[in-house]
Every structure is written in structure tokens, then in C-alpha cells.
């Protein structure tokens, strides 16, 4: 009975190995598309990797793209753990980033050690509010969060668009006036000259801190325990004296707040103002990131790195292959991850079956 388990038998290892297999396989399929457009996949991939991972600048660009994906991915992942499908990260990050910019432009002259936390908090409050609404509606009326978050994405987009074109804009632009200089988050190149020119900044640390906090909250606190019980079995939650509606509202609000932190990267660390259209679907990418990362904060960080690389890599190989190819590659990765889970697991089980038998014989 007490035979040692094969290392591949542990669910944790499987959760790690399977997405990697899926990614590798999707690159192989991507190669077919590259061949179709008449390029050499090895050449394209080698440029893709060397230009993103091979230079400090490339890494900087990659990390800059990664930061917002971590926030969005964490937001979706946290809600997922509570059994909620948060399609609304996009709207939440719009409102959050806008709030950051808004508070930032009216708080000139506040010292950094107050201003930075203040702007971070503003983003969380904005995003949190945008998560609270569908959470509250779900808990109190049973209205499905998928519909409501999608709808609120439209509302958010229209709302910020209205504000930055009509009320809070610098004339003839679609961006707000700059935030207080004390609210700026320093770039990496202020310290490491190798990152020269890349806007990657210390909001990446906020993202990593957020990942760590989400992990701690979900896995190590009683609130996280309740959230997981609600997500896995709401009837058992009721039975265990856990309020399902409270947890729905709470996790949507926290999820929204995390998405709202995207503004730290763009508003506080890059442009120093809010600009309409600054997010090109980061919130939706967050769904893919959460999925690929298996809804674990650590996985989300890794997945965000991959998608960050693909996003920047798309620009790098733009001259060789159409940029659409990178979108295709991203989509293939997602499709493979979603659909391969079962297939790879079966392959793994068969493999283990043979291995274990041969060991026993």
C-alpha cells in the first residue's frame, strides 16, 4: 500500500506540467501558421525569443506588458475560486485607473509617501466599486454575474470615455491632465540603466505583492477558506454556517479592487495620466491568464509572463509575419490549455499506469 507515489501523480505537479505541455504544443501548431504565411518558424521563433528574453530592453518591455496582466489575471482567478466568472475585469480596471488619475490630478503637492498609497487606494476603490455592483446583484437577486459584468464593461467604457473627452481632458486630447509628480512610480531605468527606454516600473512589485497577498488570503486565512468552500460547494457552505451572499459580494469587490490596480502601471508608472483606450482588452486577457495559470496566483504570474512575452513579441516579429499571427498564437495557446486538460490528463494517467505496472512487476 505504502508505495511511493510517482512524482507525476501529485495533482500539483500535474497542474504545472499540463499547461506547459499545452503551450509547447500550441507553439508547434503556431509553426504551421507561420509556414502558411511563407516564413521559417524556427527563424520567427528564435527572433521572438531572442528579442524578448535575450535583451534587457526586451525583458523590460515584456515585464511592462506583464504587469497589468497579473492584476487582471488575479482578479479573475480570485473570483473563480469563489465560483464566480468575472468577465468584468476590463470595466473594473477602466474605472480603477480613471479614479487613480482623477485623484492624482487634484492632489498636487502631497508628499510621495502619502500620494502613492492614496492613488493606489483610489484605483482599488474604483475597481472595487465596479466589482461590488455585480456581486451585490448576484447575492441579492441572483442576477448572473456574467451578464452584469459584461454590461458594466460597456457602462465603464462609455463613462470614462465621456469624462476624458468632455470634462477632465486636456483640450484636443482624450487624456486627463497629469497626476501629481509625487504620485509617480519610478521606472526600472531610473535605477538599472539596462532598462533604458522601457517603461517597465515598480508597479510590477505591487503586482507581485498582490499575487502573494491573494495567495495568502485564499490559502491561509479563514476568509479564504470560506471563499473556497462557497466556490466549491455552496450548499456545504450554508451547512457550515458560511454566508454565501456575503462571500459573493466580498470576492467580487476584492476581485474588482485588484483589477483596479492596473492603473498603477499605466497611470502612475508610464504616462502619468489616464488616456482613453489605454487598455486593449487587458481585462479579457486576464481570463485567459487565470485559466492558463489554473487560478493560482503563482500560475497567474507565470501565465502573465507568457502572454506578456507574446504581446511584446508580436511587435518584434511584426516585420516578418503579420501581427495577427501573434493573436492567432495567443488564441491557440488558450484553446489548447482549455481543451487539452482532459486529454493530457488521460495521457498522463495511461503513462503512469504503464510505469507503475512495470515497476511492480
Amino acid at each position, binding site marked *: 500500500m505504502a508505495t511511493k507515489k510517482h512524482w507525476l*501523480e501529485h*495533482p500539483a505537479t500535474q497542474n504545472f506540467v499540463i499547461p506547459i505541455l499545452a503551450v509547447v504544443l500550441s507553439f508547434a501548431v503556431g509553426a504551421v501558421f507561420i509556414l502558411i504565411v511563407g516564413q521559417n518558424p524556427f527563424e520567427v521563433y528564435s527572433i521572438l525569443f531572442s528579442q524578448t528574453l535575450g535583451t534587457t530592453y526586451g525583458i523590460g518591455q515584456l515585464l511592462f506588458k506583464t504587469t497589468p496582466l497579473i492584476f487582471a489575471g488575479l482578479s479573475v482567478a480570485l473570483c473563480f475560486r469563489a465560483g464566480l466568472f468575472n468577465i468584468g475585469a476590463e470595466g473594473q480596471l477602466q474605472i480603477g485607473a480613471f479614479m487613480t488619475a482623477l485623484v492624482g490630478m487634484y492632489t498636487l503637492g502631497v508628499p510621495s509617501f502619502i500620494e502613492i498609497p492614496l492613488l493606489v487606494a483610489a484605483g482599488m476603490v474604483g475597481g472595487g466599486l465596479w466589482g461590488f455592483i455585480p456581486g451585490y446583484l448576484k447575492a441579492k437577486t441572483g442576477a448572473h454575474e456574467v451578464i452584469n459584468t459584461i454590461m458594466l464593461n460597456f457602462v465603464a467604457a462609455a463613462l470614462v470615455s465621456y469624462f476624458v473627452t468632455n470634462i477632465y481632458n486636456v483640450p484636443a486630447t482624450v487624456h486627463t491632465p497629469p497626476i501629481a509628480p509625487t504620485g509617480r512610480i519610478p521606472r526600472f531605468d531610473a535605477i538599472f540603466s539596462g532598462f533604458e527606454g522601457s517603461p517597465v516600473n515598480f508597479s510590477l512589485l505591487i503586482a507581485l505583492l498582490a499575487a502573494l497577498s491573494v495567495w*495568502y488570503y485564499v490559502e*491561509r*486565512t*479563514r476568509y479564504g*477558506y*470560506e471563499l*473556497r*468552500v462557497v466556490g*466549491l*460547494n455552496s*450548499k*456545504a457552505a*450554508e*451547512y*457550515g*454556517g*458560511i*454566508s454565501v451572499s456575503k462571500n459573493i459580494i466580498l470576492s467580487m469587490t476584492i476581485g474588482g479592487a485588484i483589477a483596479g490596480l492596473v492603473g498603477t502601471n499605466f497611470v502612475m508608472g508610464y504616462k502619468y495620466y489616464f488616456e482613453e483606450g489605454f487598455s486593449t482588452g487587458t481585462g479579457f486577457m486576464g481570463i485567459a491568464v487565470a485559466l492558463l495559470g489554473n487560478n493560482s496566483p503563482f500560475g497567474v504570474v507565470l501565465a502573465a509572463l507568457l502572454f506578456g512575452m507574446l504581446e511584446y513579441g508580436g511587435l518584434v516579429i511584426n516585420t516578418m509575419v503579420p501581427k495577427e499571427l501573434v493573436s492567432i498564437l495567443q488564441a491557440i495557446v488558450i484553446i489548447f490549455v482549455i481543451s487539452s486538460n482532459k486529454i493530457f490528463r488521460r495521457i498522463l*494517467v495511461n503513462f*503512469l*499506469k504503464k510505469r*507503475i*505496472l512495470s515497476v511492480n512487476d
Partner: protein
Amino acid sequence: MPYAIELINITKRFARTVANDNVTFKVRAGSIHALVGENGAGKTTLMESLYGLYQPDAGGIRIHEREVQIKSPHDSITLGIGMVHQHFMLVPPLTVLENIVLGAEETRNGFLDLKKALKHVSEMAARFSLSVPLDEKIENLGVGIQQRVEILKAIYRKADILVLDEPTAVLTPQECVQLFRILAELREEGKTIVLITHKLNEVMAISDQVSVMRKGKIVGEVETAKTNPQQLAQMMVGRPVLLRVEKGEKKPGNPVLAVNDLSYIDRRGIGVLKSVSLEVASGEILGIAGIEGNGQSQLVECIAGLIRPTSGSITIDGIQIVGLSAREVFARGLAHVPEDRIKRGLVIDMNVRENLILGMHTQPEFSSRLSMKRNAITRNAQLLITKYDIRPMDPDALARGLSGGNQQKVIIARELSRSAQVIVASQPTRGVDIGGIEFIHRTLVEARDAGRAVLLVSADLNEILSLSDRIAVMYGGQIVRVFPDNKVEESELGLYMTGSKGIQDKKAFGS
């Protein structure tokens, strides 16, 4: 007599477990063959291999002495094998007739020909004395009738081999008798029947031959006439088993749990509980007998604070608990073993350690404001796993991977370990194997002997009769009779459970 089924050297492995290990199982045509064994012994896997739901890794199948390949249920149906699953595969809003012909419809010019089907099915029903209302919708029928529909469905598909998986789990004693009569009738007509069960009295009552499985192997095959339940139980478990609960005299103390005039009207406006009153004293087990769906579930949920009664009161030690949340009721000294362990009692995708603190997770023992006390939680798990003999002995094992009996032990361990004065146990041994049942029964009796008040709700009359100090029968949302002891005949209880007796008596009392 020739063999109808021959499963030869069947081996079926899952990743790490061997569900069927070189099993050879033969059934003579025209006989009723019982396949018994504990949960997880491999009975269902074996039969699902026969039915084409699984592909065995090794071994062969012969049907009516002919080598066959069964790759899907479609193949097995073609070969005349029908299976009645534990959970019925019927479509509730369709009529009996529609359900029977579903997937094997008779057509005329491509259109459904229900008239022809009606004729065929009613002939068939008459021939096998399977009376069912063909025009009634499934959702309006009781489980006993639904089961007959399942049997008819199989026969309609020309099955001459019928596999029934735990067919009596949901039936009343009267319905069981009827089912056995039907099975005997089918045998007369030359059908071959395999009965998967772990109820030994049924085996004795109806089967011709018994095969016993344990840990994936057939450990014995005997003629029913030449064996007895004690011997079968020992074969199943691998050690001598106490089939009767050993229980000393009750020493009841003061009433602890009191339910007074409790009524509950559900969302559809149906009165599910109608002024139910009962008392459970410390040191006694009050058993509630009844066919499922007569209000027992709602009574338990009211007591546990999961639903709010429409009127009436529930007190623990004289303190009103109506209106309190589940957590507050827990805190007032209630332990609750819910009837559905998968839906209610466990989070099956969490590990045993975390499941063992569900409902107690906010207690200072297990968590502070900022973090869970992981060491304490693990210690708690190790302690309970040892004390309640939960297998595997691994706090990190997912609840999903445990057998039904061990899942139930996790719940019992958790609920009995909180020092609650009142224990409400709903169907505590449903789907639990003999070894586990023995253990759970002993634990409940120990709790009673330790002076706790136990309210036992069970559809299993054996369980009610052997554990209870007093027995109340529920029918139609009312308590129709309370017996002051457990000296009552099963058939007598059955009459109250089906409403043939009791309601009138009550009216006579002028209520």
C-alpha cells in the same frame, strides 16, 4: 443450465487501483444471481464492463456461450443486456410511455408512432405483471413505480439479461416485496437477473446463487440455500462482523431537543411540515422512520437552521433556536450529519483536513483573525483519522477520492468531535458498506450512552429498528405515530409509513 453471462478473467485498472483483478463471474440463464460486496469492492465496475460503460484491460466476455465484444452500451443492448441504475435515467416531464420508447421509438414513415408503441408496451407490461400508468408523467410517480418503468424500458429493448444496481435502496418494505415478486416473475419467463446489493436479507430472500466480491476479487460463490447472512458478511468484510447492534438499556435524562408545533410551507406553497412535535432526551436515540419526501429532510433542515420554519418552535435546553443561523445553531450545541454527504456535508474537492473543520473553522482553536492554524488543523485531522479509522490515513487526500463509507466517517468524525449535546443524523449509513455501518452504529450508540440526545432519520428500517430507543413515523409532513420502544414489526411500521394507518387514528383523536 447453460450460462447467460460469462465474464472470464476480467481485469480493470484505474490509475493506481485495480478495480477488478482477474475476476471470473458466470451466471446461469434463467437464474437470479446476487453480486454482493462492500462499496468499492468492484461490483459496479464489473457490471459496467458488462454493460459497455468501461473497457476491461484484460479478459473476455461471453453472452449465451458466444464470445462477444462490448464497446458501448449500444452493443450490450443489442446483445439483450439491460441495466437498471441506482439513479434512474428517466426524463421527469415525459410520460411513462415516452420514457420507455425513448431512443428506441417505433415509427411510421419517419414519424413517431406512439399508438403502436402503446400496444406493444401494454402487452409487455401485462405479460410480466408490471403495472404502470403509461400516460402518467414520471415526475408524478413514486420511486417504486419509476423503477418498474426502468425495468420495462429494459425489457422493451428486448433485454433478457437484467442487471439491477442496488434496486431496493430507495424502496419501502412493501415496494421491496413487490419488486421481488416482479423479479421472480421475470425469472419464470426465462430472464436472467443479476442483483447488485449489499443487503444480505435481500440476497437470502430472492437469489438462487451468490457471488461475493472483496477488494476487486471474487472471494466466493455459493448457492443461496446453502449459506446464511453471517457467513456472507464475513466473506464480504474478511472478518467476523456483528450484524446486530449491541446496545445496553437506555438511561434517558431530561429532554434536550424539543420541537413544538412546527410547520413549514415551502416556496411553492405546499405544507411540507404540519405541526410536528417531538422531544429527544439526553441518552436516547429517537428514530424517525418514513419514506423519503415526507418532510423528514425539512424537519432536519429546520432544526439545523438551514431553512426557517413557517411557525412553531425548536428549543435546545429550553433555548429557542428558530431564526438562528446555521452557525449559531452549531454554537448552541447541535451536530448535524446531513442526509446528502456530497451535496451538503462535504466539499469533495477539498482535502480531508479542511473538511474536518467545516463549520468550526472560525473557532479560535483553528483560526485567528489573520490566519488559519495549520498545525492545529493537521493535528485535529490526524487525531480524528486515527480515532474514526478513516482511510486512506492521509489528511491531504481529497474527499472526492474516499469511498462513500470513509466520506461518511469524515462527517461523523467532524460532527461528533464538536461536543454537541444534540446529534441529528440523517441517513447516516446510506451507501456505506457493512464494516462502515457497524462502526457508525457503534459510534452513535456510544454518543447516546455518553448522554447525548440523538435524532436519527433513516429510510432504512433495519437501522431504525436496531438503533432507536423510541420510534416516530412520519407521513405527509406529520408524525403519525410514536412507538415508546423499538419492539414493533417492520410491516407495522410500513403501514404507517405509507399512510395506510395512522392518519385516521389521528383524526379520531380529534386533532
